[in-house]
């Protein structure tokens, strides 16, 4: 898979239900540096809506989202 946004880290949150994709993303970003990029993989359709809201309310930047079959890839840049 091409890694469109040159992610520094990939978080595989597939199989997890709300609110776990947001929780795992928050915990993963904790260990990263500002400006670094995380790629979150999820197959929870609600994450398409929830993770952008999460990013907005935590101030982290949503770079993009793409779908690859059932997998949704969400790219966030740590604030």
């Amino acid at each position: 898979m091409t890694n469109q946004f040159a992610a520094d880290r990939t978080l595989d949150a597939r199989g997890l239900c709300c609110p776990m994709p947001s929780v795992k993303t928050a915990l993963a970003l904790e260990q990263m540096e500002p400006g670094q990029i995380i790629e979150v993989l999820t197959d929870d359709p609600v994450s398409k809506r929830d993770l952008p809201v999460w990013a907005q309310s935590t101030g982290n930047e949503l770079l993009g989202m793409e779908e690859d079959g059932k997998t949704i890839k969400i790219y966030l840049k740590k604030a």
Partner: protein
Amino acid sequence: MDSALQKKGSVTIVLFSGEMDKALAAFVIATAAASMGMAVNIFFTFWGLNAIKKEGGLIKGRNWMQKMLNAMNYGHAKKLALSKLNMLGAGPAMLKAMMAQKRVPSLHEFIKTASAMGVKFYPFEMSMSLMGLKKEDFLDECQDVIGAVTYLSIAKETGINLFI
């Protein structure tokens, strides 16, 4: 409603319970708030999802546990139990008769009224997927299926937060 009346605060309700009396209490508050021009959002989760299920064809679910849960948890706006004095189903019938006598709207009418007044209904994702329910199983009045983060982003801007 949104444009004509000034917005005066907001109410966000999580309807967790599946009993008719609790759903009615939620909708009395919701419609009164909407009449005052308040922004009202109701999030339906767990048993509360029954209030916005379509009638009929409810034995959904892709596995036997979900099928069993939905069969036993059969319910929709016209067929919910009471939280007290349910009396094997006689209680809801009595309450409905009393409501009709007093011209209290039925839950079904409340849902229609609330929706017409701009109250937003959101099914919660996690409990839907636990129960094997899909967006199509819910009334057309419902908005998108949402998750806890979206709920919180709305609730934190809200004056009155209730969990019913």
